[in-house]
């Protein structure tokens, strides 16, 4: 018996019970003891193992950003506020049906659907909302499946539980779609390959989504009390200067004031450093007010390039260049998120050298702390 505490206990003590957990689901799926349920990680039984993958891959346990960056990009971390940019552009699906289902331009669905058709992937692990709009992991194996995953829930999603649950002997080629926290967890798994889980070489493309924060802690119940969620087709938080959370259904659109739901913003998100999913192969976000109905796309790796190039070549995507100003705005927004994260973390630890889970090179930390708003 190890004298060290079990990894699951450490995870619960250091992350889950301290308000750092973003419910990415990375600790669950391959493990019978931890399960995401109604916005928290529940422990079903006690695991005795001191070395646990739950702790190892959690995006909120010590994360060596340099090591991951070296593994994925072959270079140290931290040159650009929006991560490695091999190529950036605006895009939207060329298919009106996909555009209609998509949150902005339907780019993610278009990319995945094309990748599936071209045999680059056999399935995509995405978030799908259940009948009551609760987000959960889902393995999409057809364009129809992927269309059912389109649209943002604005709540945390334990999507990686579905990935970790895949049979470990599977040879299916996979895509994974996630928020920056999911992407960081997957990046840790790529850097330190897992045991008793599906081989990470099966993961052919990781699509990351831009994210500022999620709504949690009773937000779903808030929605259930106010709306008939079985009729809801879409949610949207239009960008600044808009100030509402919109719910679209067959009968039209209803709104709630953002000010009324700000207290549901997930506390855990205030410690998050990553806005653009910097460890993805391709990161996709909204085109914002300037380019309504379009997505901002950042291609970061060769794997990402392969998929976007084919998508463009096969006319699955319409693209246009992204103005420099837009990219700079994005950099500024991302930098602000990093500043807020550092401020929250340092306020909590009381020590500028203790950044909780963030293993950042010193120069990167200093640069962010020194930068103006």
């Amino acid at each position, binding site marked *: 018996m190890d004298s060290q505490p079990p990894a699951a206990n450490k995870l619960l003590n250091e992350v889950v019970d301290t308000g750092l957990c973003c419910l990415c689901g990375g600790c669950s799926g391959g493990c*019978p003891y931890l399960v995401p349920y109604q916005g928290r990680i529940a422990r079903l039984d006690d*695991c*005795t193992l001191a070395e646990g993958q739950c702790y190892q891959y959690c995006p909120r346990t010590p994360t060596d950003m340099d090591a991951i960056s070296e593994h994925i990009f072959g270079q140290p971390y931290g040159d650009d506020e929006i991560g490695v940019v091999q190529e950036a552009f605006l895009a939207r699906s060329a298919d009106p049906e996909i555009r209609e289902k998509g949150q902005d331009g339907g780019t993610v669905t278009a990319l995945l659907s094309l990748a599936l058709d071209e045999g680059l992937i056999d399935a995509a692990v995405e978030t799908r909302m259940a009948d009551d709009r609760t987000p959960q992991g889902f393995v999409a194996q057809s364009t129809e499946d992927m269309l059912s995953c389109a649209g943002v829930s604005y709540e945390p999603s334990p999507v990686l539980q579905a990935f970790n649950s895949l049979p470990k002997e599977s040879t299916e080629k996979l895509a994974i779609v996630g928020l920056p926290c999911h992407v960081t967890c997957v990046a840790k798994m790529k850097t330190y390959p897992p045991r008793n889980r599906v081989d990470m070489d099966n993961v052919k493309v990781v699509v990351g989504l831009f994210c500022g924060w999620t709504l949690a802690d009773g937000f779903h119940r808030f929605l259930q009390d106010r709306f008939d969620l079985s009729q809801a087709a879409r949610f949207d938080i239009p960008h600044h200067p808009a100030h509402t959370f919109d719910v679209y259904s067959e009968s039209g659109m209803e709104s709630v004031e953002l000010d009324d739901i700000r207290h549901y913003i997930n506390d855990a998100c205030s410690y998050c450093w990553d806005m653009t999913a910097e460890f993805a192969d391709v990161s996709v976000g909204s085109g914002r007010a300037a380019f309504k109905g379009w997505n901002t796309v950042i291609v970061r790796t060769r794997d990402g390039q392969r998929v976007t190039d084919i998508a463009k070549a096969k006319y699955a995507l319409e693209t246009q260049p992204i103005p420099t100003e837009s990219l700079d705005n994005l950099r500024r927004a991302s930098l602000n998120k990093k500043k807020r994260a550092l401020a929250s973390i340092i306020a909590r630890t009381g020590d500028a050298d203790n950044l909780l889970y963030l293993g950042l090179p010193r120069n990167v930390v200093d640069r962010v702390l020194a930068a103006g708003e």
Partner: protein
Amino acid sequence: MPDIDVDAPGRTVLLMGNEAVARGALEAGVGFAASYPGTPSSEILPAIADVAARRGIYAEWSVNEKVAIESATAASLAGIRAMASMKQNGVNVISDFLANLVMSGVGAGLLLVSCDDPGQRNSSNEQDTRPIAKWLDFPLLEPGDFQEAKDMTKWLFDVSEEFDTVCMLRCVSKISHTRGNVTLGELPAPQYRISFEADKRERGRGSRRHDDLHRRLARAQRRFEQSPFNRYVGPDRPELLIITCGSCWLHSQEAVRLLDLEDRVGILKLGTCWPLPERLIERHLAKSNEVLFVEEIDPFLERSVMELTSALSAMGPRPVFYGKRSGHVNAYGELTPDLVINAIASVMGLTYQARDKEYDREIEALPRGYVVPRAGTLCPGCPHRASFWAIKNAIRMDGRDGFITNDIGCYGVGPTPAGFFVGRDGYCMGSGAGVASGFGKLGQFGFTQPVLAACGDSTFYHAAIPALIDGIHNNSNFILVVFDNSATAMTGFQPHPGIATNAMGGPARVVSIEALCRAMDVRVEVCDPFDLKNTTATLLDMMAMDGGVRVAIMKRQCELTRARQEGPPFKVHVDPDKCVGEECGCDRLCTRIFLCPGLRWNRNTGKAEIDEVICSGCGVCADICPQGAIIREAA
């Protein structure tokens, strides 16, 4: 079980103590027998029920011991000799009825048989029921062997009629469940006659009846002075007098013989334990300077005799008393010849070495390598395991520290590893619902933990209904989980009102638990525990509902019942390539936590395996393996 109505007076047969009691009742012409299953009493009723039809006897498994004694009393009042048998806890259940019964008397002979469980091997508590006879003032006999079990039972019906009172025979496991030689007596031809003469008897009013009872008891005591059930063996003036009763008589004889003290130690075995044969005891006390009491479990004879000696001014110098008060004999647990040997040796300043010390150490160490410590468990294929798994998962996912209040039955493993520690300690029949109903009323004090009451199907009929009604009426907040395996399994599959047969093998009306609960207008869900996913989801939903009483019936028949009717549904094996054993991704979930005895851990290969001899083929483990390594195929 042998048929106990063989007509062969004088023949010696091998009978279990409980069978001997049943035979004694037959020889007394009993016409009505009622009981509720409880170890070690459970064999008495079926021994009678098996021959009931041809002897014109009515034999019943009652819903609980209270109804059993009440029904038997009706028969007695109507002129039919009647008997109610139960374990020690049943005596507690009937205590109010007994306290009233003794105030009004009986008709034909009425016998209460109480079987205690010293050592608490099969009970929720350890308890000596002898004191109730002293407390409520009625005669008590305890058999010292199997012959006496029969003969005392038969005689007690006469005693009951002569002194117009219920009488009690008290057995312990060692008598009830051991077999010995019994010489059979005459079997009367079955004939019964209804006669309400008893009701016309003049008994006086109110408290005067109590006085009358004491007088009748005093007459019984004088009769007991002559009883052959009180025996003495040993020298006329023993150095040490052992006063004993019950199976301790056998231990005492054995101890004295092993110590080779037959000409120094005398044994006074009492059979009539209340009222005590005071003159007889006095005579023996006068011939001894030292007295050792050997009895199970409480110092009942010990204290009663000590009380007696305070009143006997003419006795002369009192003997020195040894027993539980002096610490020579345990006041808990079962006694054994070794314990009695130690007590005698200690009192008499002797040393007794049963075995060479070296040899002792050697044989103690020998099995240690081979005998694996085994915790209490549930059978392979038991639906309760699946129910507890679903309950445990639902409680943990719900996240508000829900718990189960426990009750009596196979499902009573809630507080143990077999029940995944979901339960708090249980108490007695029906207390799960009662205690839960109490917890459910604590919301106003800030209590927020979800409460689930565990209750078996037989327990539901026995005792849970009043608490359920109380909870509904008072808007208590709890879920009653009925573990309905269509059996009174723990005690041996005796029928209950959910089963369409009665004790005598005839048809009986079923009273549906589900229908009863629905009639009370609360949410009732019937779940198949083997469908883990839906059962867990239903429980979660019911817990989230959080208000008033809800009932979840976990319905699936006991595996032992099912296995008698058909073969295993699945053939199950572990794929060693998929099994990850102690590694991350499992950490031995099936053999460390799920704990079905059909699964075993191979330390050499580091893989789980199915034990093909033990596995019942239920296939549930295939659903809990996180790696899908447990494969089930239709058999």
